[in-house]
């Protein structure tokens, strides 16, 4: 049976789409490079490619204990402050939190031999030292996001006295839950061959792996939909900012990637144990500080079960979970996330000053 479509209607649809495509390209060209990072901040510390920022408070008397945001090494922390009305950072500031952020930068060939120990016991440890001395506190609040959450868990387990409260957002803990598609792809990989051949692991390769989880929607359909958005300047701007963020994928320091992929994706060491940094075992039962675990119920990269596994592994007497009804990215940028997530985190921190 032939499709019951009128050829004339199909032709009009085709010409209409081509016209929207043409307008879309013109508008993208006119829009120029998107500007990300909306909230005023100061550079406090630089070290190799890393930059530590402190955001300008938006209330007169913010909470005395500062909050350090540690984002993933993959992708850029601009996701936390994409634009004024989509900003985890701004939401936290407005809720009275003193917000600091680590930008890990873009590893170069000179960073190829950086290890997880360098990131956790070096960079992160020194950044926390900066916060402690600047704010005159013994311990800080730490918020780790995705892979940055794993680094934060490792840090807090090694230096519990320096972390007053730990917040993890969309953070994988059990990498071997059956619904973890990314782990499914990484487990058969020869990580040594990858790192020994590439040195630093190309960000484009990792980004393609993320897109490959939903290729029809993320690599194809999205752009056909974009043609429909081109009449809406604000929607187009939002799209371009997000698009810029998605493809702004730093290369990964080779040795750190090797350790991370093997220890967590392949060997699931946060659950099975046996992972050590600086010669000291990383044991989640040493997490005795208050813990807030925020996960997304529709997360296609970090399934909820992978995050919720923390509940059975920590050693804290004060553990809270927040389930956000959305996805891995929506938890930062959706309108509902702005209303729900930063106020909830800030309220939880305020109850534990």
């Amino acid at each position, binding site marked *: *049976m032939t499709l019951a*479509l009128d050829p004339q209607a199909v032709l009009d649809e*085709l*010409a209409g789409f081509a016209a929207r495509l043409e307008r879309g390209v013109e508008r993208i060209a006119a829009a120029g490079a998107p500007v990300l990072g909306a909230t005023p901040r100061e550079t406090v510390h630089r070290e190799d490619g890393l930059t530590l920022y402190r955001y300008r408070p938006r209330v007169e008397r913010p909470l005395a204990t500062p909050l350090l945001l540690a984002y993933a090494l993959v992708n850029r922390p601009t996701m936390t402050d994409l634009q004024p009305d989509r900003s985890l950072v701004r939401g936290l500031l407005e809720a009275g939190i003193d917000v600091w952020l680590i930008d890990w930068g873009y590893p170069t060939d000179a960073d190829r*031999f950086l290890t997880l120990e360098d990131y956790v016991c070096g960079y992160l440890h020194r950044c926390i030292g900066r916060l402690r001395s600047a704010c005159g506190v013994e311990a800080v609040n730490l918020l780790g996001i995705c892979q940055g959450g794993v680094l934060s868990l490792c840090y807090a387990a090694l230096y519990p006295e320096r972390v007053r409260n730990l917040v993890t957002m969309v953070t994988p803990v059990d990498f071997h839950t059956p619904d973890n598609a990314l782990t499914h792809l990484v487990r058969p990989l020869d990580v040594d061959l990858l790192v020994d051949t590439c040195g630093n692991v190309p960000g484009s390769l990792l980004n393609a792996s993320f897109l490959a989880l939903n290729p029809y929607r993320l690599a*194809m359909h999205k*752009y056909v939909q974009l043609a429909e958005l081109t009449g809406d300047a604000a929607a187009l701007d939002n799209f371009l900012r997000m698009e810029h963020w998605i493809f702004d994928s730093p290369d990964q320091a080779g040795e750190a990637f090797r350790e991370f992929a093997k220890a967590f994706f392949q060997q699931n060491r946060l659950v099975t144990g046996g992972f050590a940094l600086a010669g000291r075992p990383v044991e989640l039962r040493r997490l005795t500080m208050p813990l807030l675990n925020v996960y997304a119920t529709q997360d296609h990269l970090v399934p909820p079960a992978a995050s919720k596994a923390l509940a059975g592994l920590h050693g804290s007497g004060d553990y809270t979970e927040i389930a956000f009804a959305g996805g891995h990215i929506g938890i930062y940028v959706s309108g509902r996330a702005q209303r729900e997530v930063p106020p909830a985190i800030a309220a939880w921190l305020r109850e534990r000053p």
Partner: protein
Amino acid sequence: MSPDVIEQQHAAWRAWLAGEAAAAPEGFAATLRAWRARLPPVPEMARLLRQGEDFVRLAEEVLRRLHAGLDGDAFWQGLPLPDPFEPLAAPLAWPRLPERMAELLPPGLREPLAGLLAGSPLAAELGEGFGLGRVAALQDDWLALGGDWNAWLDAERGYRELLAAAGARARAELRTHAEAHPPTSVRALYERWIALSERRYDALLRGGDYAEAHARLLHAALRLRRRWQRIAGSVAGLLGQPNRAALDTAERRLHATRQRLRALEDAVDALRALEPAATPPRGKPQEQRR
């Protein structure tokens, strides 16, 4: 491309549909492709146009088939439904390195380089004509390159076959679905294709075969890249340039030196903390550690 061009094409297609022209006019897709080649390299534009072009190609082909009165298998067979192979495999296209390297060179140098990479006459010249002596390891690598290349071709074929099998199942489902619930537009047909394909692909992705085929493709691409690196390193050595091993050594030493520097800085900080009244040492402020 301009609105005028689109309108002209629209008019030409209308005339063809009305039987006023014998042959179908040049497609919108061909115009878009030519336009894409002339645009500045803005990635967002390129992706929009690339996928937009695929949708347009589908719509044009639907139109041609409807106009020809094709039915059943004749309508569905070979319908150009977009597939994700290129977006998925593009980052694994290192084996196409020779073509990309040749593109970087001015026209006068392209042929000698292409010769080096295709059949190795320049490598032979380096070995004999320049008086640098034969390099057995380099020759072995050139020979092994063929085996690595074939392994990569096999792996890519296996990966393509898996995707194609999933695509064929999605195609059959699309036909069944579209015949039971006819879409009201090409866009509606496309949306169904995306939804069904994503579902099929997700099932494929979570099975064991896909992960194995994906790993095999990545490993084959890496081994091929590694072989190229060895060949490039050997040639660099002949020309007195550092190769990958030399750079690795330098980077490893740099890393060790940085670690020692950090340890010294931490020790200085600890001493300062013990003697707060002491005169601060001269040197870089700590904010600028590098």
